[in-house]
Every structure is written in C-alpha cells, then in structure tokens.
C-alpha cells in the first residue's frame, strides 16, 4: 500500500469520494452514500453563501470565533452539537430503515437499503457522533454558559484554554464530517475494538478517522475538565461556599473531576491503537504478544465514567428546573450533593461490566456486578428527591417539565434494564444484543438529550433575550418521548428474542413487525428534530413578543437570573456578595432585589484572540494529514501547535478593560427597564405579559 502513497497528497486521489462508488455501481446503498456527501457539500456551500450574502463573515470572526467569553463558547459548543445531532438522528433513521428491509436468508447475499459495510459505517459514525460530538459538546456547552453565571464569576479560570478546547472538539467533529465526502469511516462501532480495527483487518483510512477525531477532541475534553475544576475551586463569588453552590455547579464539579481522570484513559487506548496501526506495534494485535483484552480494559476505564459524565449535568439541570417550575425549594440539597459525588466516585469502579463475557472468573464478575448495582442507589435517591421537590408544589407544565416527566417515566425503565444487565448471569444472554442497544439509548436519550434540551429551553432567554415558544417546545418534547418509545421498546423485545446488535441482516421473519414499529419511531424522531428546528425558528421570528429584558422569566432563585437577558459580556455589573444558598431567591424575599449596587469599577475581560481558531486549524490539518498519510502536512500541523503556544507565550497580552462608566450606563439602563416592566405572575409565564420581571409576591422557594 505504501507504494501508492504520493509524497504530496498521501493516499488521496480522485476515487475516494462516494461519487466514485455511485458511478461504479448504482444501488440504494451508493445513492444514500452520495446523497449524504451531497448534503454535506451543499450545506457547506449554502452556509458560506449566506455568510457572504449577509456579510456575516466579519461579525462571525470578531464576535464569535475569536471570543474568549465562556458564554459565547458555550453557545458555539451547543450549535456544533445540534448540527451533529441532526446528522446522528438522520443516520439513526437510515439504520432503522435499513433493518426494516434487511430480512434475508443464509444463502442469499445481504439485501436492504444499504450494503453491510455501509451499515457498519453508519452505526460507527452514529455512536461516535452521538457520544463525542453531540452529548459531550451539549453538556460542555451548557456548563460553559451556566457555570460562571451561577458561581458569580465573570468567566472561566482559563478563557483562552477554553477556546482551544472548543477548537479541538470542533476539529474532531470536522474530521468525522469530512469522512462523509472523502474516504470512508471505520466499521468497528464507536468502541473500535481491535483486533478487528487493527491494520490487518481494517486497512485504509476508516479507523484512522475515528482515532484522530477521538485523540484530538479527547484532548480538548481533558483541558475542559481542568478548566471547570479550577473555575469551581478558584473563581466563586465571595460568600459562595461549596454548600451554597446550585446543584448544577455540583454536578459540573463531578463532571470536571471525571473528565480529568477518565479522558486520559481514552487517549491512551487510542494512542496505543494508533501505534499499532501506524508504527507496527503489537499492543492489541493477534500475534506477537498483542492482547485485545487490554484495549477493552483501558477503553472502558474511560467508557464507564463517561456515561456518568454525560448524565450528571442533566441531573444538575433537573435539580434546577424541578425547583423553579414547582415554585419550591429543592428537596434534599445535601442528599443530592452526596448522591452526585457518590456517583462520580463509584462510576470508576464498575467498568468491567462492559465485558462480563470475556472469560474472567465468576468472582470478578460478581464484584463488578454488585458495584454496578450500588451505583443505582444514589441515582434512585436523586429521582425521589426531585419527586419530593415537585410534591406539594405548584407545578407549571412548561417544556422543561415535559422533558423532566419523560425522563422520570423512561429513565427508570432504563434503570431497570441496567439492573438486569448488571447481573452477569443475564448479561451472558443479552450482552451484544439489541437489548443492550435499547438500554443505553434508554438512559442516554431521556437522561442526556432530554436534560440538555430542557436546560437549553430554560437558559435560552438568558443567552438571547427571548424565550422559546412553549407550545412548540412541548410538542418537540412529546415527539422526542414518543420517538424514543416507538424506536427503542421494540429493540428490547428483539434483544430478548436473540437479535445481535449491529446486524446488517437477519433471518427470522418474526423480527420484522418489531422492525416496522422501530422504523415508525425513527420517523417520529425525525419529526422531533424538525420540530426542534421549527421551535428555534418560530421563536426567533416572534422574538419581540417573547423578549424578557427583565432577565428573570421563570422567577428563579439562582444568581444567573439577577442579570439582564441577554446577559452582558461582563455578566455581573458588580460581583455579587453571596449570603445564602439560592442567593437571588433570598434577595427577592428580602425585597427590592433590583437595587443598584453602590458603585462600579472597571472590568477586566480577556481580550479576543484567534489563538483557539489557529490551534484548531493546526489540529485538524494534523488529523487529516495523518489519516491520509500526507506526512509533510502532518509534520507541519504537529509543529504548528507548540509554535503557536510559544508565540502566544512570548507576546504581552493586555486584557480588555471595560470602563466603569460603560458598565454603569448599561446597568442603570437595565434597572430602569426592570422598573418600567409590569410584574408578571406565574399564570402569565407563557404569555406576552412575561417580560422577565416576575411578581415577587409569588416568590417562595
């Protein structure tokens, strides 16, 4: 193969696009492949055209891409995640459509919408995207946006590092995206177990795309974890001691700690696999002493904590919204803190349950099986605590509460199947089956996706100054709930019937009715995606009616609701002195919460810089060049990163100073606006009367 590597373009040539496959052979599989590539190309062209037409390139660069503001970085993370979510859901739909047409026989070649190899790429990219480029950026984005505001901080501890993290995540996402058009993706699933993904059995660029996407974005996530942790430890407002932090900050702290300890394991396992593939090492090969069991071990040392990295921020969101929308204090704050921390710690002790069937002794399996069940205890306690929060409240059925309800009812079923799978004796049967697929979708969709969408709904006005349309928000939530039920409940049944996951074909006609139901569910999921897009669009068009300049549309209790909406770049005109848990709520109880501060000072903000963007570009070049063996470009990208760091290190960087007068003017304007608004009661929450100034008489909790 090395013979065909050109020194200029590596292994790239004109045959790597799916259009070549289409010209070679026209069938449904190549049409789907070329169609997907075309969507990517047309999307990029259309995006570029809109930016040019509207003359948005400049503002995009100045206001967003070079911004070191955690709030903007958070929004960009979420925008990236939503784009990737669209691809992930569509891929899920194509897989369901394929399996609904994939009934075959042992004698005949596989039939159905897509070819087996294409199907394998679909499940590999779907998993990779949904975990690393949807769930992770959603939660990291939300934490970026919310955490400093809740802590009473102006920004993250390391704003530019934050930019770099976003850039590395985006570079990884870019690699996965470009694999639609240039070359193929790996077929080893999102875990890419060797030896199947070793160079012997998976030659070519596919696995390398995965490796570099993971290595690059994983580095970003590790840095993010450090950033979050330092921010929580060092940047809290005066008086914001640990036991006054909102629950969302606590779960962010758990996430930060877990990112720091878990992500390096993934980097190590991926780096070892890369050495096997590129440099002829034998960590995980069949021969020469390689052992794939080590890969499984290291990968899941990351992989299991990862599951709780994904879910804990959602638990934070649910803690906030259950209290706010029931007009009540959060029940069992201390209990929830202990439960979150227990989950964070115990999650490092259960990884082996991902491979109970690898042949170890029963004693080992028993230990890890019981550890797995124990993690269910704090999780269960949290659910009961939220129920106790709603109990004897006055619950407004807003979109976030619909998500919360969906979460309650579905997540416990996911918990049940989790307890089932924790039993090694049963896991021997349903491991690697669609039962397992149903299980992890059953915890991740209601947990992560519902939690994050609820959070987006909740904090959207803080970011953009207007609320999202509640009716469309609820419709979207219901579609996501229905979509989940119809798509994944059949997969439980199919798994119990003995269907392996990742099957490009099957021979049992009894599977077919369940496949049809699941496909219907996938259609609902597409509908939910469309409805989500429509929610954003219709709310944007109605933004004048939905505007909440008062900044506190839900009558909240935590610090972030004390500022204007949209929140100014300096967040707080003056860093608040925190006197209680739910400080903004206590201020409301004391009366006159919108009193102006005694004085204003100059505010120091991090200066805008293209540093993150440049590092992202270098990292993307490095990854792409390594995938295609373009060695000169790889070397260039690899050297560019330390060069950029050194260059920035040698420059004198002045922070941006916002003069006190400017802050004072903006702050007085905000306070005048609030004073001019009519207080809205909770009954008016969804109407145009809600301008972000709540009726304090109603505040309690």
């Amino acid at each position, binding site marked *: 193969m090395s013979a065909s590597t050109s020194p200029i373009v590596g292994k790239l040539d004109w045959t790597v696009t799916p259009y070549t496959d289409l010209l070679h052979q026209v069938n449904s599989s190549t049409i789907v492949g070329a169609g997907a590539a075309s969507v990517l190309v047309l999307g990029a062209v259309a995006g570029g055209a809109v930016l040019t037409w509207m003359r948005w390139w400049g503002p995009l660069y100045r206001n967003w891409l070079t911004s070191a503001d955690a709030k903007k970085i958070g929004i960009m993370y979420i925008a990236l995640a939503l784009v990737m979510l669209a691809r992930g859901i569509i891929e899920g739909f194509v897989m369901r459509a394929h399996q609904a047409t994939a009934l075959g026989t*042992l*004698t005949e070649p*596989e039939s159905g919408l897509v070819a087996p190899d294409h199907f394998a790429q679909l499940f590999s990219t779907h998993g990779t995207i949904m975990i690393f480029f949807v769930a992770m950026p959603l939660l990291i984005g939300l934490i970026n946006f919310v955490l400093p505001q809740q802590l009473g901080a102006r920004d993250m501890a390391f704003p530019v590092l934050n930019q770099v993290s976003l850039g590395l995540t985006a570079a990884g996402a870019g690699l996965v995206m470009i694999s639609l058009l240039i070359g193929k993706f790996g*077929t080893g699933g999102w875990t890419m177990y060797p*030896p*199947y993904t070793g160079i*012997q*059995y998976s030659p070519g660029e596919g696995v390398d795309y995965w490796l570099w996407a993971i290595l690059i974005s994983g580095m970003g996530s590790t840095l993010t974890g450090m950033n979050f942790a330092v921010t929580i430890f060092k940047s809290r407002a005066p008086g914001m001691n640990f036991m006054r932090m909102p629950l969302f900050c606590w779960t962010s702290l758990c996430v930060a700690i877990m990112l720091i300890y878990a992500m390096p394991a993934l980097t190590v396992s991926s780096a070892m696999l890369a050495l096997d593939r590129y440099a002829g090492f034998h960590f995980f090969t*069949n*021969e*020469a002493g390689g052992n*794939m069991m080590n890969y499984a071990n290291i990968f899941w040392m990351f992989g299991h904590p990862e599951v709780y990295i994904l879910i804990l921020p959602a638990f934070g969101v649910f803690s906030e919204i259950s209290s706010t929308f029931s*007009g009540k*204090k959060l029940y*069992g704050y*201390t*209990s929830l803190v202990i439960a979150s921390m227990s989950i964070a710690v115990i999650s490092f002790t259960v990884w082996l349950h991902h*491979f109970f*069937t*690898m*042949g170890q002794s029963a004693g080992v399996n*028993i230990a890890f099986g*019981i550890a797995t*069940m*124990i993690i*269910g*205890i704090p999780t*269960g*306690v949290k659910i*009961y605590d939220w*129920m106790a929060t*709603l*109990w*004897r*409240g*006055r*619950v*407004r*059925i807003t979109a976030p509460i619909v998500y919360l309800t969906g979460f*309650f*009812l579905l997540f416990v*079923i996911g*918990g049940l199947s989790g307890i*089932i799978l924790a*039993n090694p*004796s*049963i896991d*021997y*049967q349903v*491991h*690697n*089956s669609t039962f397992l697929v149903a299980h992890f979708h059953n915890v991740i969709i209601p947990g992560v996706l519902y939690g994050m969408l609820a959070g987006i709904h909740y904090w959207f006005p803080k970011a953009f100054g207007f609320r999202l349309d509640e009716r469309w928000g609820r419709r979207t939530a219901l579609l996501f709930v229905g979509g989940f039920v119809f798509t994944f409940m059949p997969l439980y049944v199919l798994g*119990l*019937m*003995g269907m392996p*996951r*990742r099957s*490009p*074909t099957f021979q049992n006609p*009894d599977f077919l009715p369940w496949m049809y139901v699941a496909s219907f569910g996938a259609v609902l999921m597409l509908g939910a995606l469309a409805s989500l897009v429509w929610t954003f669009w219709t709310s944007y068009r109605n933004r004048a009616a939905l505007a909440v300049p008062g900044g506190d549309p839900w009558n909240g209790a935590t610090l972030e609701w004390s500022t204007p909406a949209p929140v100014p770049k300096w967040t707080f005109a003056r860093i608040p002195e925190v006197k209680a848990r739910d400080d903004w709520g206590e201020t409301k109880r004391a009366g006159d919460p919108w009193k102006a501060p005694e004085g204003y000072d100059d505010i120091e903000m991090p200066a805008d810089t293209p540093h993150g963007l440049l590092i992202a570009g270098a990292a993307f070049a490095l990854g792409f060049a390594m995938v295609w063996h373009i060695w000169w470009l790889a070397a260039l990208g690899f050297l560019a990163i330390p060069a950029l760091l050194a260059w920035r290190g040698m420059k004198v960087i002045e922070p941006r100073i916002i003069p006190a007068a400017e802050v004072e003017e903006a702050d007085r304007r905000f306070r005048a606006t609030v004073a001019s608004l009519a207080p809205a009661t909770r009954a008016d929450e969804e109407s145009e009367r809600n301008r972000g100034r709540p009726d304090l008489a109603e505040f309690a909790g």
Partner: protein
Amino acid sequence: MGKGISQAAKLGAGCLLTAFLGDPAFAADALQQSFLQPMGLVAQEQSAHLLRVVAVTMVVILPVLIGVPLILWRYRYSRPRGDYTPEWEFSKRLEWALWGVPVMVVAVLAGWLWYSTAKLDPYKPLGPDPLRVQAVGLDWKWLFIYPDQGMATVGEMAVPVGRPVQLTLTTDTVMQSLLIAPLSGQIYAMPGMTTKLNFAATRPGMAEGENTQFNGRGFGRQKFTVRAMPAADFARWAKAGRSTITLDEAAYAKLRRRSVLVDARRDLGLEASSEPIVMTVGQPDMFRQIVAKYHENERAGAAQGWGGTNNPDSDTGGEGR
C-alpha cells in the same frame, strides 16, 4: 420458595413470549433463538433470574411510574389541590426511606446476583463425562470439532439431550462471541486463547447459534443450528458424519478465508447452499495447533501451518511481520 418462583417465572416467561412471538415459534421443530424459550437448565435459570430481577426492582420503580403522574396531576399550577409548602426542603424520616429502600432492594438483588452468577459460571462443569466440542471462530462461520468422534462441522452442531457439553472456544481471526441463547449464555473467543462454555440440553429441539460480536461484512450471516437430539440419534449422527471431506491443512486454509458458509461450501467443492459442512478430522490435535499458532514459544520453527496468523484476505499471507 425457589420452586414456586421458578414456576411463576415459567408462567411469566410463557405470557411474555406469547405476547412477543405469537404461537408459531413454540412449535417444536422451529428454530429457537431466545433464552426465554429455554432448551437447557442454564438458559432456564437465566430467564427465571431475569423475571426475578424485574420483580424485585419493581419495588423501587413503581413508585416513580405511579407517583410522578399523580404528583403532576395533583399539584399542577392550573388547578392545584393539596397543600403548598414552598419552603419545605428536608425531612429526616423521608430521607431514611429514600436511601433505605433502594439500599435494601440492592442488598437483596446483590445476594441473588452472587448466587446466580456463581451457579451459572460458564466454566463450571455440569457433570461427569461431558461431550467435548471445540469451536473455532472464523470469519464468518464457526467450525466445531468433535475430538472424540473424529469429526468436524461448519454451520451445525449436534448435542445429545441429557449429556453435559463442554465447549472450548478460540478464534483464528478477530474476537468473536458465541451465543446459543436457548441453551447457554455467550462468551468471547479470542485468538491464541481459549474460553469455555458448559451447558446441557434438557429437551430435543433446534436452537440457533450465532456470533454476537461484529466482525465485518458477513457478520449477519454467521449463524449455525444446534440440534439437541436423543443420545441414540446423536450416535447415529456422529457415525454418519464420517464424510468424504477430510479436514486437513489444505481444507482448513479454504475454510479460513473470509467467507460465509455458502461460499465456503463452494470453495470446498460442495453444492452452494446453507446446508452444514461435515468433515472427518485429519489431525486430532488441530485445535491445540490453531491456538498455538499465536504463541511464539510453542510454534516450532516452520509450523506456520493452519493458514498462519494473518488476515487470509490480505495479499501478504503467511508470516505477519
């Protein structure tokens, strides 16, 4: 009590199955694919344990499934009933219940987990004098070697009802996982290493066996039939199995190619169908040799036989470095 529960479990499994599968699947000659239609004690115990776990876990789940709709209905903002206690945030007694009940449920489940996992340990022999079968995972088929009968099959495995079976597994390609759901759980098979499954059929019937670990293009067709038959029938089957094809290194190299059963039959000069391949074993210790290929120290000099350790489809062939 155990008896009662297993009875209830059987009944429950029956109901579940009728709901899931309809009647045809219950026909005796149908290919069974689920552990909820057990053909042996291991799978039967596994399905019983499943129902047990579901029942016990309901203690912590039902309060949520019932409580959440009730709370939302009763305390909804538009027409609330009941008290409103906005400042209430802690109750010691409630706290004991919230932590205590899950702890107790997990304690019960943990005990049962321990018991069932130890009991169903796949390495534990189920009785004296088991039928020895060796399974070699190939891309995309399983080769079964009966060392005591001197025969080997692809696409089919026969076991006598009532006699324990000890299946020893390895692969001669990437990692795979062998599952015969109605009889036993799955276990991974890895090159150069062996794992074991012990099981026994308690009734005659046909079960589908499969690989559950994705290993490429032909994964969806890597299935085989397990036929559980009375001992006399098994003896007859084993005798009839002495076929004209001898499984020697040359035949094995053809089997080792990355192909599904139909294509492997074609390679061996058989009619293209999904009928099983039955062969006479040429070398009695071939299983050991296939495992030893991957061990530097056991591989005597030029013993790169049995197709080597490389991907059979790659151009290089033979030695991998």
